[in-house]
């Protein structure tokens, strides 16, 4: 007599064999993993917030000035022997991204209270906020050089940051891209599952299976396990290979498992709706998009907009970022895990219902 577990095991072995023989997925999976992990380690692992500033003083040694400016927090000042050298350096963005070109007689003019013009050099792609910052800096510099205080007394500042203060903890490009790589890997495996499901329907092998002692619940269980296995293993490989597994491994495992269930549900939906390869691709992208968007949203600074926060992939991305970059634990991740779990339940149930309906109608 056939056991239910035996039927599911038979399906798993068969599906793994079919998957391993699909050259497209094998190549995409291996190339994807190598690419993601390779790119990750090529990216900078920290955020350089220092402003590299070039200075040229036409008729005086620049050391005094550079020492003065260089004392300011967040600045690294390089002096240049000529205005042309400074312009070239700023234009190239190496080693400076902005420059101050002080005219001849600058110090004397400042001391005498005469009008003088300072050229501020900026690269075309320099942040917009850099321009007023440098202007203010030049004015303040003038007061310092002549030994006077600015004409107004600066008020004391009391800064209140609402929420967790992430100042000085900006995400490195590596940390920003890790969720993207994980979600891309999940997406490929979701597509692979959708193809397996669609193939079973298109080739009508499912009808042959259902005239044996195998039940449709066995087929659903097997497809769920294979989908989760493929998706979770790919995501886990990326997390381990990018050195994030040591930071909250249990929490990450739970998040990845939920992510794997989520894409398995999406794979079941896409596989059930797609009548051929093109339709499977179409549905996979359409339904997979809300899973991917939050990962790409994490590339931009600041909190995700409200519409991204309600998407299925947001919980996974938030947990990954908060755990791997900020060392947060289960307590902080709970709301995001809850939301992810709710999406998993909804999408997975929908996938199961659609697949069951499709099979019955064959």
């Amino acid at each position, binding site marked *: 007599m056939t056991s239910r577990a035996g039927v599911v095991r038979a399906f798993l072995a*068969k599906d793994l064999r079919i998957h391993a023989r699909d050259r497209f997925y094998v190549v995409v999976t291996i190339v994807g993993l190598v690419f993601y992990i390779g790119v990750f380690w090529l990216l900078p692992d920290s955020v350089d917030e220092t402003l590299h500033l070039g200075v040229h003083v036409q008729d005086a040694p620049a050391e005094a000035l550079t020492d003065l400016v260089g004392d300011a927090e967040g600045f690294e000042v390089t002096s240049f022997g000529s205005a042309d050298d400074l312009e070239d350096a700023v234009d190239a963005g190496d080693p400076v991204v902005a420059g101050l070109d002080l005219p001849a007689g600058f110090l004397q003019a400042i001391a005498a209270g005469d009008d003088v013009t300072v050229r501020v050099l900026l690269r075309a792609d320099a942040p917009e906020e850099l321009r007023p910052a440098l202007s203010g800096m030049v004015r303040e510099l003038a007061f310092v050089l002549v030994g006077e205080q600015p004409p107004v007394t600066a008020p004391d500042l009391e800064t209140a940051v609402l929420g967790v203060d992430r100042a000085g903890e900006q995400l490195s490009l590596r940390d920003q891209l890790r969720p993207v790589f994980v979600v891309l890997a999940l997406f490929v495996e979701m597509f692979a599952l959708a193809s397996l499901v669609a193939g079973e329907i298109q080739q009508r092998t499912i009808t042959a299976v259902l005239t044996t002692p195998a039940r449709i619940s066995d087929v659903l269980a097997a497809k769920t396990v294979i989908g989760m296995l493929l998706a979770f293993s790919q995501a886990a490989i990326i997390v381990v290979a990018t050195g994030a597994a040591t930071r909250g491994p249990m929490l990450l495992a739970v998040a990845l498992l939920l992510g794997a269930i989520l894409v398995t549900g999406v794979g079941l939906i896409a596989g059930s709706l797609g009548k051929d390869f093109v339709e499977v691709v179409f549905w996979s992208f359409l339904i997979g998009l809300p899973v991917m968007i939050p990962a790409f949203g994490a590339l931009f600074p600041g909190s995700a907009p409200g519409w991204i926060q309600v998407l299925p992939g947001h919980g996974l991305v938030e947990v990954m970022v908060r755990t791997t970059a900020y060392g947060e634990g289960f307590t902080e991740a709970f709301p995001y895990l809850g939301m992810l779990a709710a999406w998993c339940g909804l999408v997975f149930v929908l996938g199961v219902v659609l697949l069951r309906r499709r099979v019955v109608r064959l």
Partner: protein
Amino acid sequence: MDRVLVVEGISYAYGDTVAVDDVSFDLGPGEVLGVLGPNGAGKSTTIKMLTGQLEPRSGRISVLGLDLQRHRDAIQARIGVCFEEKNVYPTLSGRENLAFFARLFGLRDIDLDGLLARVGLQERGRDRVSNYSKGMRQRLMIARTLLNEPDVLFLDEPTDGLDPVSARTIRRLVRDEAERGAAVLLTTHDMYEADELSDRVAFIDRGRVLAMDTPEALKLVHGTRSVRVRLRGGSGVEEHVVELDGEAAAERLRDLVHGGDVLTIHTEEATLEDVFVEFAGRGLT
């Protein structure tokens, strides 16, 4: 057990379209029942209901003494189904296809090579099915059907569109299985196949069974028999058809044979298609 398959008044409709309408028949061990009808007559829907793929809207199906609705698992472990479409896994080898289905039946240590040899695929068992011809795929499906040595075989158009060699192999296997004692329900729209293989034939059209009997009885009772005589006469070759429907026919035949230079004499009997046309008012295609 006298009757291994008992079907009582089953019906099925796709929306408002009635596909099977109050169909009843039974089948004994070792018996081959050919279900003959044109495309869309309800043959495949009937098989789907008999194999548990569809639930009848009404009626009752008993297989091996068990009610299909209540004992589907137990029944499906003892039946074999061969489908009209070639539903095998193309990226697996023939042997791997059989091994997978054997595991679904919970079968271990099964002689897959022997089974492949029965259908003439012993040399190609390790090749991927994607490299098989249509006939080879069909023979593989037959091998899959025989995996569990089924007590009842359901064969849906098993030789449709096949080359003569593959068709002959499959017909031989059907006879072998019937000799083993398996009951065989065979759907086809090939009247010669039905005539050759079936102990009884059921005509089905528009979802209803029109007639059911042995092929001989159907042809004798519902068809006409005749003798076609060609002879050389004064005005050239003459052809005469004599209906064998009484004593007058014998007399007329005697006159023809003695009255001229006989070139050929052919007996002609009704085909199953002729009988089907008489019942359905249309042909099998």
